[in-house]
């Protein structure tokens, strides 16, 4: 068997595996996507909400109501509306807002940029500190270092992100005046300024990622260290560093990565509240504001985007997991 033939065969297998993981992740979400959008559509027609209430308020007459509903195409049969909307969604068009007639895709993109930069930084903080604390606790397991870290992680795990946010504002913005308490500045206006504005919200959002990743990683690593293959590697004369990185970390990282994958919806949900604390015009604020106004197309857009984001993130995590522990991809 030639080396080249072996190489391509392996590549092909890896590609096939990747494709199957991807297909499975997406296949699970397609029906949910359909159901969720269908239900929100159905609820809208049942609830009788319409842009007329937004625009005319209490003064709506039946005639003006009908006129506006006709303008928005809401007098068409339900299924026609749904299919029409769905077709547009597939091409990236989420319709226009009842509230101000703006293009929802554009509004959501603007908001998502803000939220994703905060969520991205939060994820980064979560991964760095979560892994740092988790690894430290696992390497110093059953010592006081381990107990202090574990205790601290348990404590911060019961702190809702808006509580952390308020505490951070009270300390770092109001009392110490180190960082701005609210607002958002695009990165084009200066990287430092941008970072200063997203740091506190990102820290607030990251707490629960840090604590969960740290605890799962510690548990995973401690369990991996108890495995016989560690003894096996030891008697083969491999050094402690190699054993940690190549054998323990690889097998113990799974739970932490799985949790990291589940974190993403949390970061999205957390964004709704942290953005309120820090007055950032992000995805979450947009969702909350649209909901309070009764702006149905905007809310539907929010749901579509969050499902898509969750799918993409899950996909990434599943691919990494499949790459790291091939056995798990085969359900072994």
């Amino acid at each position, binding site marked *: 068997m030639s080396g080249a033939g072996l190489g391509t065969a392996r590549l092909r297998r890896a590609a096939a595996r990747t494709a199957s993981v991807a297909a499975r992740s997406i296949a699970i979400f397609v029906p949910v996507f359909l159901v969720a959008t269908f239900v929100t559509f159905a609820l809208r027609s049942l609830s009788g909400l319409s842009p007329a209430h937004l625009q005319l308020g209490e003064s709506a007459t039946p005639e003006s109501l009908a006129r506006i509903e006709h303008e928005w195409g809401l007098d068409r049969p339900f299924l026609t509306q749904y299919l029409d909307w769905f077709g547009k969604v597939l091409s990236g068009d989420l319709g226009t807002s009842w509230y101000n007639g703006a293009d929802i895709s554009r509004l959501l993109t603007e908001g998502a940029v803000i939220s994703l930069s905060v969520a991205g930084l939060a994820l980064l903080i979560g991964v760095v500190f979560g892994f740092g604390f988790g690894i430290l606790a696992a390497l110093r397991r059953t010592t006081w270092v381990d107990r202090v870290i574990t205790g601290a992680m348990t404590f911060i795990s019961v702190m809702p992100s*808006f*509580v952390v946010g*308020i505490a951070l504002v009270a300390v770092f913005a109001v009392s110490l005046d180190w960082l701005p308490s609210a607002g958002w500045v695009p990165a084009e206006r200066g990287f430092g300024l941008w970072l200063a504005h997203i740091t506190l919200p990102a820290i607030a959002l990251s707490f*629960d990622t840090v604590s969960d990743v740290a605890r799962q990683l510690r548990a995973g690593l401690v369990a991996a260290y108890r495995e016989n293959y560690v003894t096996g590697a030891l008697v083969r004369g491999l050094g402690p560093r190699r054993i940690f990185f190549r054998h323990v970390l690889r097998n113990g990282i799974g739970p932490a990565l799985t949790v990291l994958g589940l974190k993403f919806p949390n970061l*999205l949900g957390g964004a709704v509240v942290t953005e309120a604390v820090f007055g950032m015009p992000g995805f979450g604020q947009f969702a909350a504001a649209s*909901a309070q106004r009764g702006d149905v197309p905007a*809310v539907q857009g929010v749901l579509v985007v969050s499902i898509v984001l969750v799918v993409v993130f*899950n996909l990434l995590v599943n691919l990494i997991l499949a790459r790291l522990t091939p056995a798990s991809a085969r359900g072994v």
Partner: protein
Amino acid sequence: MVRRLLALTSGRIAAVILALIALLALLGPLLSPQDPLAGSADILADPGPHHWLGTDYLGRDVLSRLLAGSRLSVLGALQVTVMALLVGVIPGILSVYLGRAFEWVTLRLADTLIALPFLVFAVAVTALLGNGIPQAMLTVGIMVSPLFFRVSRAATLSVARSQYVEAAIIAGASVGWIVRRHVWTKVLPPIAIALAHTAGVGFVVVSSLTFLGIGVRPPAPTWGGILASDLGFLSYRPWAPLLPTALIMATVWACNLLADAIRDVSGEAGRALLDNRKLRGRLAVAGRGA
């Protein structure tokens, strides 16, 4: 089981905190020293003999508002748990018996539901079903129901495939006896753990929503609402968020503590549930919701 639970220090602490909160919810309005809605000229006052915890920006008594807000939080938590229980348990049990297709569909659905950001969905639903806490909580209840689905499914599976139930049937035990003796002791602890966790989620979600001002009309007192108004006056009363924060955290913590205590006293039945990695991850996630 209750007796063994209360023998644990953590179990006692959790029980005391939750009992206090429940008492507040029942009697809160009666205990309030003043009308939680009545403003006064004495705005943003420091704690003193008249207002033990000071007043807010409209001169309303903070202590009275906190007490009055507890009812909404407890109700919200109850709505989430009851909804999740109802929606999750029945398909969970049926998934074992109704054949492959039903099993596959419900499993996939459960996996997906639990992966979605339920706070975003709760917020969205208030736009469609009307601005109210119950609507939001019922949505959250549906979205965390996979927890109960998994738990009841696992318990049903273990009972359906267990040899001791078979043995008991052969030995001529009555169905009622088997359910009481075997099924109940297996199913109850994991369900109780899931209930405690879900209640914790409920408290976080209620405070998050009320913090955003969703689901309540402005003068109504809520824990989250008090926090939100404190946020605007941090430079005058930087300590103000401490108490509502402490209340929220203590409740959530007590729920998690209770869940852990139940797991400790229930032995294997509880541990089996928590060995499901994905679920545990999402549970931990759900614990602080948001």
